[in-house]
């Protein structure tokens, strides 16, 4: 099974005095849904871009199953915040796009794409144009597209950030179902505390200047949802509320310290 390892990663933009990320180490393996939570400027997106291979780290090593990451590749699927779908293709062709790039014959790749659309509850939307979809539907197509290429790990860059609260909750539950069924390790970044606590098996809290990990929590609310408990019951569980408040306090204490540093 896939194992993603980050060893003492630092990242710096060319010309910038301070690094965006310093000394990040983490592992992501099977059965894990790792959520990186932090305020803006804590280097969440930079971390995802490093793992995806869009940018190279200034120090440290990223490996997937022992193979160093040296650029973007199909073994690390990415779901973007603003869907990044191709409007000149219909929904089915978008989902099958990764397989088309890999040279899979049309019938085979379309069959796979149909399966993936069914997995994200979009069966029957094959021939729709991208601009006819709602925000939540576009994100589902983005998820199906990433999954259809059968990546080893799935990277998600604030995938529900632009959705309304109601759609967001639906999408969170859908993600947990898909994660359970596809059995792929997921790395997700968000700035929504409740989302982070609900989804993650592993929650890392990032603090800015430079981005570093301040806390690593092991949680099981997502697994409880997968085991059949309802989302509402979990979210009103005192333990859930307690965890959420704890994380909230940590985020606020960070902000306080940042403010004191600046003062």
């Amino acid at each position: 099974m896939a194992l993603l390892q980050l060893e003492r990663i630092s990242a710096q933009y060319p010309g910038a005095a301070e690094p965006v990320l310093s000394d990040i180490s983490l592992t992501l393996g099977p059965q894990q849904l790792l959520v990186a939570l932090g305020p803006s400027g804590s280097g969440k997106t930079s971390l995802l871009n490093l793992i995806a291979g869009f940018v190279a780290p200034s120090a440290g090593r990223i490996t997937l199953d022992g193979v160093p990451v040296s650029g973007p590749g199909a073994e690390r699927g990415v779901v973007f915040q603003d869907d990044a779908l191709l409007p000149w293709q219909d929904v089915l062709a978008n989902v099958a796009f990764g397989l088309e790039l890999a040279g899979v014959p049309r019938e085979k790749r379309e069959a796979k794409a149909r399966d993936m659309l069914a997995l994200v509850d979009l069966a029957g939307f094959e021939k729709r144009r991208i601009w006819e979809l709602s925000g939540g539907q576009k994100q589902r197509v983005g998820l199906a597209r990433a999954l259809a290429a059968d990546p080893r790990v799935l990277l998600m860059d604030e995938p529900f950030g632009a959705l309304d609260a109601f759609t967001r909750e639906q999408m969170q539950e859908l993600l947990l179902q898909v994660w359970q069924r596809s059995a792929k390790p997921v790395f997700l970044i968000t700035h929504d505390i409740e989302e982070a606590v609900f989804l993650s098996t592993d929650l890392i809290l990032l603090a800015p200047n430079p981005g570093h990990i301040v806390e690593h929590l092991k949680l099981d609310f997502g697994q409880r949802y997968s085991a059949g408990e309802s989302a509402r019951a979990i979210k009103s569980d005192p333990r859930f509320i307690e965890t959420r408040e704890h994380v909230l306090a940590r985020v606020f204490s960070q902000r306080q310290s940042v403010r004191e540093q600046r003062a």
Partner: protein
Amino acid sequence: MSLYPSPEPALTRAPVQTAPRQPSSLYVSTRAISVLTLAVLLGSWWLVTALEWVEPLFLPPPSAVLEKAWLLMTKGYMDSTLWQHLGASLQRIGLALFFAVLTAIPVGIAIGHNRIARGIFDPLIEFYRPVPPLAYLPLIVIWCGIGEFSKVLLIYLAIFAPIAIATATGVRTVDSAKLRAAQSLGASRWQLIRHVILPSALPDILTGVRIGLGVGWSTLVAAELIAATSGLGFMVQSAAQFLVTDVVVLGILVIALIAFALEMGLRALQRKLVPWHGQNH
């Protein structure tokens, strides 16, 4: 309610109330206004010639131009029928456009995509583009003679620059998220160009073709005014020398009609090929 409301109540009424489509007021579509404008123009042409306010030598009546059109289509003018003149012009612009599209799009992609290609082509294109084609026509005639090749080359050069520049702009403004998405799905360099960059730049490329065709058409007619034995520009030029005003007017009308048809055709093509353009996706 009366069909023609008097102006006073409209003035006293607050302007906030006027909705774009009020059932009671006279709503005329934009297209109808355009048609009406043309009709008024044609009507006044007919009126001033019918009342003989203007000498037919300066402005022949519409009927004379129509008669001449029939004559030109059946018997011809200067050894060629109207169709042959039209065919000669269309062939020149068609050939030039074909080769311009074939070469300018790859060059534009290279400029937008590759630093070295930009360094090579950008100054070359920007250097010759502002020069009016008629200014370098004499040089082309000295080098390549007055045959078909010179005319096609001149039009080709006029069309090339707008298409290459528009393509390069389109390539440079490709959404980086789409590029990254394709890369993370395993796209190679060529697949990126084929599946993401080219379709993204297509609206700009088509706009470039529209601009290029406009420039090319005016260059064509100008080139035919100077050195040709057939073509619409030649027809107008030689008719003017003999003061055959109705042929001149007819030639101008045909030139305008063709340019208009080409533009409308390209707009339709743009709507068909890039239906996502302008959609908020």
